[in-house]
């Protein structure tokens, strides 16, 4: 019934929870070696793609031919490599300038979500009893929210969102999903011999959690982190795409899509360039997450 237990989680968590088990199933009679070769490309290619986008975002501002707000021609003209945007700013330069903010917010919110989620998940699994029941029921209620909805709800009453508000909101929307996964992993661990023996030795609970349980969860948590980062970038850019900007006018991939969207026919690059960068990054992190998930599902139980 573990399948049922994980299933009611939203899309994301349930998907990966089930997927590795299948891909890890012995493929016919193939040897371990050949199977190991079959996962490596995903992780390596995924990491390479992710690293490429990060590099573009970090080094971009120095490579950009024009400044972030520099007007280089008429609006939606073909001046420059990728043309100009709605104000006549150079699209290529805006793309090179606009990556860092998206990636930093996505990364921070992923960290917030992971820390909160792991904390709640381990506590629920380890304390158990009514605490577990109450926490998981609350969790179910939060899971009934589509992830982006939580952020939108709060944004409806906040006049000017700040970057930190977005980080916290997106992070909180990740937390229940992470909690579900980490609770599942931690439950399996608390019954293992090394935890029992640590308890028998009289170690404190906190010490057991930090020294025994957490290190053994690193594999599944890394895979979860990669997946959360994939959804983070989609949400952070999506919120900006819906027009809720923390810094109007600044170069930002999500915001650029919203700004130039109406001119898709006239000047497609103003929209397509940031869209493609976001897409490439998401594909990279998703591939890497999948690679890690396959790696750990074999290294652990099989």
């Amino acid at each position, binding site marked *: 019934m573990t*399948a049922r237990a994980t299933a009611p989680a939203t899309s994301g968590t349930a998907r990966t929870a089930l997927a590795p088990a299948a891909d890890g*199933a012995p493929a016919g009679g193939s040897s371990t070696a050949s199977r190991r070769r079959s996962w490596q490309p995903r992780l390596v290619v995924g990491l390479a793609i992710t690293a490429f986008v990060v590099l573009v975002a970090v080094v971009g501002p120095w490579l950009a031919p024009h400044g972030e707000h520099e007007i280089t021609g008429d609006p939606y003209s073909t001046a420059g490599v990728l043309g100009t945007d709605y104000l006549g700013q150079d699209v290529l330069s805006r793309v090179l300038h606009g990556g860092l903010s998206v990636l930093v917010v996505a990364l921070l919110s992923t960290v917030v979500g992971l820390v909160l989620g792991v904390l709640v998940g381990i506590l629920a699994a380890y304390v158990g009893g009514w605490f577990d029941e109450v926490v998981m029921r609350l969790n179910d209620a939060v899971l009934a929210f589509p992830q982006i909805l939580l952020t939108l*709800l*709060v944004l409806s*009453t906040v006049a000017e969102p700040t970057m930190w508000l977005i980080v916290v909101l997106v992070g909180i929307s990740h937390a229940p999903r992470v909690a579900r996964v980490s609770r599942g992993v931690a439950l399996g661990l608390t019954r293992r011999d090394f935890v029992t023996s640590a308890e028998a030795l009289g170690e404190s609970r906190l010490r057991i959690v930090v020294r025994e349980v957490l290190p053994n969860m690193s594999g599944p948590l890394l895979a979860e982190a990669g997946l959360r980062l994939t959804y983070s970038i989609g949400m952070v850019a*999506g919120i900006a795409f819906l027009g809720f900007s923390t810094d109007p006018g600044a170069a930002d991939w999500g915001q650029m899509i919203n700004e130039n969207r109406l001119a*898709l026919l006239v000047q497609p690059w103003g929209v397509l360039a940031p869209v493609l960068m*976001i897409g490439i990054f998401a594909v990279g992190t998703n591939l890497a997450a999948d690679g890690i998930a396959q790696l750990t599902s074999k290294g652990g139980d099989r």
Partner: protein
Amino acid sequence: MTTVRTHDPAPAAGPPAGPPATTTSGSSSARRSPATAWTLWAARRVGLAALTLWLVSVLVFLATAALGDPVKAILGKEAATNLGRAEQIRQQLHLDESLWDRYWHWFGGLLRGDLGTSVANGLPVGELIGDRVVNSGVLVLIAAVVIIPVSFAVALLSARHRGRRLDHGIQLVVLTLAGLPEFVVGIVLVALFSTVVFHALPAVTISAGGEGPWTQPASMILPVVTLVLVVAPYVIRIMRSTLLDVLDSDYVELARLKGVPERVVLRRHALRNAVVPAIQVIGLQLAWLASGIVLVEYLFSYPGIGASLVDSVRNSDIPMVQTLAMIVAAVYVVVNLVADVLSILCTPRERTAISS
């Protein structure tokens, strides 16, 4: 350290419901009748769903009412100068009452079907969203009708060609699509099919006053295809893994050894056993669609609740936002409940566990 996952439907059906004298002796006189057992089980499932929805209502209320200042959000810089309008909004949203009173006021209205009045244009919320709920429902339904057979077919194809080039190709495409945010897929589709490369399909849905968007089928194509491309990868992955598990099983092996034709093996043994996981994943994805439509509807200007939600959030139209959020959450909870119940009804082992 006995952490029983009591919220887990399967075991919960046994112990917590408390069969009176269930011991190993198994005397039939001490057992509840199957009818009672099923009623208890159904009551428990529906009760849990209702509890979840109530918790959701608390969360929706807190997120929209307790954190920011609606008056400032609605009026912007005018809030300090236009005191009359500010006071009017205060009264309309009952901002002078305590948080507790406001919650019960709102929740009571929700139960009575009184959804409040839109701040943006003063019309009743129920009137404003009626058509939009139908429009979104049609969009999700069409998407679901496409997704289910397509993902079944692709998963079957992939599983049959397991380990070969076709399978690898399908997996690569599926994995790539699974990572992409929905608006990325949507915008690329618009660029490909309606603006930059071809000019075959309309990029936005234009519904002439009052008519449903389905009266112009061409404008539905891109939103539906976007939803399919975003959701199908997950269904395909899980269906493929389920099919592989089944195809590896002993009974399939035996059927093959008996000389049962492969086609019959697939139809009789593999597909039938994949039904329950399929119900689960399709339920999940349908529930996900309820939120996936937010960005997709906004992108295509589709007149549904998703686009409406974005507009309401932008206008800080709190009664609208609260109602729409509750609708989305209710769809999620109900679809999950139905999927859980269906999958239990489709599993003989579970049925026996409940009725005995």
